[in-house]
């Protein structure tokens, strides 16, 4: 029922946006559909775009479920990629590719976790809301990236300000050389399953959800909510960092100032549309991936195709969040003394 309403709302948002933009609805929908699912290239594009969105979306779910409003997915993704690139620069040529790649991803997770963990610590220990600090840390991360690719990690052959491209054997496995699709999708899907199992099948995951749902009840039951809060932020940042590492070793192979594509920002609508549930993120991540892939196709035939997609996203998220059933207030009021 909930799913049906969501799908209806998404469809409606899509059609209305097309109408407002003055595009022919039927033709545009056909172009979108073909671009996203029309052939193996379309499907591959959809899945490749969905990959980083799944990881960053999961990251948001973990933090938000603990009551930590992490807005810094973008910064954590960037710092993750920088961490990965630093490890790559240090070990390239010394370690074989199939070994180096997991090391890069691990470094990306660690760097992302540190970046978000700092924001978590700031909230718990210094009272700086994570909403504020993570936004600000996004800007720091963007500048850090600019400095890194022009300074310490810049390729020495004098080309564009970017890092030395990774050799093919260090990149994530590709299933078909013509396609974008890479092994990162498998990592993302496994992450969805792991996060689901963590949140609903482990003691720590239960505590995380409890701290987010009621900090006061968590306190009264001796749950160390500060540790839980910082832990959730670090997990969240690790997933966003991983997204950066996966994008780096799966698609670009190099870091430049154009590396960030907004996957970290989009993670928030993905997570909200997914109802802050990892399995919901799987669906909404794929939906957004398809929207991206489809709109690239649409853009070839009409102006405003890629602008359109952002409008559709906003409309879709607002529609779905506004339609979501609200938690009922408690029925029985305590009798006043």
């Amino acid at each position, binding site marked *: 029922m909930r799913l049906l309403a969501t799908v209806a709302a998404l469809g409606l948002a899509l059609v209305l946006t097309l109408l407002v933009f003055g595009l022919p609805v039927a033709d545009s929908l056909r172009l979108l559909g073909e671009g996203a699912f029309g052939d193996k290239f379309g499907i591959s594009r959809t899945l490749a775009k969905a990959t980083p969105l799944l990881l960053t979306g999961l990251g948001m779910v973990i933090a938000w479920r603990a009551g930590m409003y992490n807005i810094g997915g973008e910064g954590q993704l960037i710092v993750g990629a920088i961490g990965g690139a630093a490890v790559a620069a240090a070990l390239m040529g010394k370690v074989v590719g199939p070994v180096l790649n997991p090391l890069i991803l691990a470094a990306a997770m660690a760097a992302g976790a540190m970046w978000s963990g700092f924001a978590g610590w700031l909230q718990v220990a210094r009272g700086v809301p994570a909403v504020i600090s993570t936004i600000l840390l996004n800007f720091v991360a963007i500048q850090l990236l600019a400095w890194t690719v022009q300074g310490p990690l810049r390729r020495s052959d004098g080309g564009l300000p970017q890092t030395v491209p990774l050799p093919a054997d260090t990149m994530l496995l590709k299933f078909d050389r013509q396609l974008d699709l890479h092994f990162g999708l498998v990592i993302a899907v496994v992450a969805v399953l792991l996060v689901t199992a963590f949140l609903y099948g*482990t003691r720590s995951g239960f505590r995380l*959800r*409890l701290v987010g*749902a009621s900090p*006061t009840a968590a306190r009264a*039951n001796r749950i160390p909510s500060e540790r839980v809060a910082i832990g959730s932020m670090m997990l969240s940042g690790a997933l966003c960092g991983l997204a950066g590492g996966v994008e780096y070793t799966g698609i670009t192979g190099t870091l430049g100032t154009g590396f960030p594509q907004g996957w970290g920002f989009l993670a928030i609508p993905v997570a909200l549309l997914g109802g802050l549930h990892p399995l919901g993120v799987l669906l909404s991540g794929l939906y957004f991936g398809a929207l991206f892939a489809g709109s690239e196709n649409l853009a070839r035939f009409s102006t405003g195709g890629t602008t359109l997609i952002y409008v559709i996203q906003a409309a879709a998220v607002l529609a779905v969040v506004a339609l979501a059933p609200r*938690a009922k207030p408690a*029925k*029985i009021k305590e*009798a006043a003394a």
Partner: protein
Amino acid sequence: MTPILRLREVSKAYGPTVALDRVSIDFAPNEVHAVLGENGAGKSTLMNIIAGFVAPDSGEGTLRDLPLPFGRPFEARRRGIAMVHQHFALVPAFSAAENLSLANLRSPWQTHRPVRDAGHSLALAEQLGWKVEPDRLTQDLPVGVQQRLEILKALSSDAEVVIFDEPTAVLTPDEVEDLFRVIRELKDRGRTIILIAHKLSEVMAIADRVTVLRRGAFVATAPITDVDADQLATWMVGEVPGTRTPVSASFEPGLRVTDLHVRGSRGEHAVRGVSFAIGKGEILGIGGVDGNGQVELAEALARVRPTAAGSIYLTGCDLEEANLAYIPQDRQSDGLALSMSIRDNLLITGHRRRELTRGPFLRRRAIERWTGDLVDRFQIKVGSVRDPVSSLSGGNQQKVVVARSLDQIPDLLIAVNPTRGLDVRATDYVHSQIVAAADAGAVVALFSTDRDELAALAHRTVFLSRGQLTDHLVGGDA
């Protein structure tokens, strides 16, 4: 003496709880009329009805022979009824003058000049002998001065009837003295002062007449010269029934608390050097008026709040390892996570149970069995354990808290007002579970402001007063 304000047969119920039951009172001009009663006697409800914040279910009221505007606070205020709330309605980041001017806002098109708009109140402050610095931020002012701002706000509309809701609770003795001076002055200017109180000594000092409420019902009204503190205490509490079992010294040693100090949330000394012992199987009742350190002591026993000094010792086991069951006072915020499911709320203790977990993992099937078993055993009326706990009635919500705490016999059970807001059947049920836990050997600390509850359950009762224990309810604190 013709009454200015009359109430006739006023009743009000919140769900199953009757807060006021056909109460009739007359208030006269030029008098300080104290309304006295224990927690839950209905004092605040009655005052909120007079001031228009709450509409009664039935009954009538008149002010100067015109009907009271029930449920319309602004109209009540316009007619001359003002209330000084126990919890101040001041904006902390505003200056004193800004807060005072709020009571006297002009048209939105006029420029707002706090000191000018507060001029009336500031002049009144001077008449009352108060120094108010208009530019000081309210949050920097002492509590007593903040209360003065509240009083000035209430008086800004030239109210005829001024209600004070437990005004002395937050004041130092000097501040109380000054407040009483002002109350007398207001009386001499022809105002009717209604004073909610539960300290007998203060009532005896200031009131002209006193009305006592007990459990929502009118008990008596009398001129203060006709009564003494003992008489009032008896009216408030009623006859105290005998305890459940005669005191016996046959309990094995259980909990021993020695010279315990605990700080409150604002760093104040909430519990000041408390020592007591509770045997295994014994229920110790801890009574007293709310806000005398009960919550802080309970939280310290439950290891939720750190202790400042002193020791808590539990015979036969390490307190950190012990099976502590804690039924907090505030079910909706401390007891339950309202947005989570019934199952998850049961898991609040369950996720620590060895038989429900394997390493870091929760055992889904074992949990399924456990929750089903608790729902049956504790007769929780649920559709599905996956429903949000907020869909349950208050009684069934409390059963969730009780069930997850008492599914095993705890070493130590700490319950704070465990039946507040529950109907009779739910209350009986919770009581039977507490007794059962004690009979099975648990050490039980039962905090309650309800004398009947303590009398029915506790083997022994002590009272907390300003963070210290006394053997009986002291008249001055009742």
